[in-house]
């Protein structure tokens, strides 16, 4: 008992038992507090049930805010400039999607826009909208719907894959022309790190528990 009292954890909603079920094998557990920085694992299959992330709300709020600012920088400054035979072309996230749509590949163009612009924007904006007010114990209006959208958007956020795509393209173009990295490129690399940190910053169960407590 004494050791449990020293564990800092997030507030639980009212009501006695807080069961958790393993999403992987459906085994029922009673949710107990775990020390910061560790995870509770399923007794049967060993999959992580939930994690107690240190300074979760602060970190997620900070990193998602940083990610939003970086997104602005990525879209304002040139990403990559290519020069061949005196002609200059520029790459930006918008252009990568727009040129595909203009060339007649509507579907792929919209997919690329969705994976590199819309999904990251929903993720970063949504996390900031939900976690920011939660820092002071409030649930923002409609936070429940936004939090639901976070889960839907997560698998479609592919900025790290796009960055690999940039590297492969560089290798392809290397001998053909002169390439210059712009501020946008470095901002994009930083954006990738911030997004990953924001997503890993808070556990889904903690986020929803806090939302439930704030709504009570």
């Amino acid at each position: 008992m004494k050791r449990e009292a020293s564990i800092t954890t997030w507030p639980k909603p009212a009501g006695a038992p807080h069961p958790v079920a393993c999403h992987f094998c459906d085994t029922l557990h009673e949710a107990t507090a775990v020390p910061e920085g560790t995870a509770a694992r399923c007794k049967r299959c060993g999959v992580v049930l939930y994690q107690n992330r240190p300074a979760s709300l602060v970190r997620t709020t900070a990193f998602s805010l940083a990610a939003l600012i970086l997104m602005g920088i990525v879209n304002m400054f040139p990403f990559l400039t290519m020069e061949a035979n005196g002609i200059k072309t520029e790459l930006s996230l918008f252009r990568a999607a727009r040129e595909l749509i203009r060339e007649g590949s509507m579907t792929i163009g919209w997919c690329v826009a969705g994976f590199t612009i819309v999904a990251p924007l929903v993720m970063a904006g949504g996390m900031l909208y939900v976690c920011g007010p939660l820092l002071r114990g409030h649930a923002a209006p409609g936070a429940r719907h936004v939090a639901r959208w976070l889960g839907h958007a997560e698998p479609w956020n592919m900025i790290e894959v796009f960055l690999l795509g940039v590297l492969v393209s560089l290798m392809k173009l290397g001998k053909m022309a002169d390439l210059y990295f712009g501020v946008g490129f470095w901002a994009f690399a930083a954006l990738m790190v911030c997004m990953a940190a924001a997503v890993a910053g808070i556990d889904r169960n903690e986020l929803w528990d806090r939302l439930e407590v704030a709504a009570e």
Partner: protein
Amino acid sequence: MTPRLPRAIDQGLANCHVCGKVTPVVAHRCPRCGAGLHLRKPASLKRTVALLLAAAALYLPANMLPVMTISEIGNVMASTILQGMVEFWRREAYPIAIVIFVASIMIPIVKIVALVWLCAAASGKVHPSPRILGRIYWFTELLGRWSMVDIFVVSILVALVQFGAYMTVAPGPGALAFAGVVVLTMFAAMSFDPRLLWDRLEILEASKTPQPTPNRE
């Protein structure tokens, strides 16, 4: 044998797939987030198999049709994903060639085969350990997105290489098929319910235990 651990389904409890709250399934909607409650993902196997069939049907055109066409001073050259990889290999850019081979050619097919196998196991046609199957499932969910890299390469080249008569790159029909394979396999992995694997094990163990003298086949 280890004592049997209780499952949520045995007590009519549903694990909300959106917020993770465990509530009686009779509520139909999660009281916390409002998502629909199900004991298992609805029609999981049917949906997964249907999506996999669609993905498999697109796999051949995705690899046979050119993902982009390069027009260089009047010369039009179509390039498939495989040709792009071979080109890197010939230029001795081995790491990039391997990355493309793994992300674009290997992962989609491995993912389709792995999910078919998981569906077979969940419907009781094969009986491997759920633990190993679980690792495979986790892997397919983790790696699937990286196949998108070639579509991004096409989009970057189309945006950058626009030098009028000198050289232009345009997307090819293979790109749509390829993006289709990636998106469909991602949906297939999402619609598969790994808990079905453990349900199968449960049925298997339940059928074994009551017999006092097991008849080994």
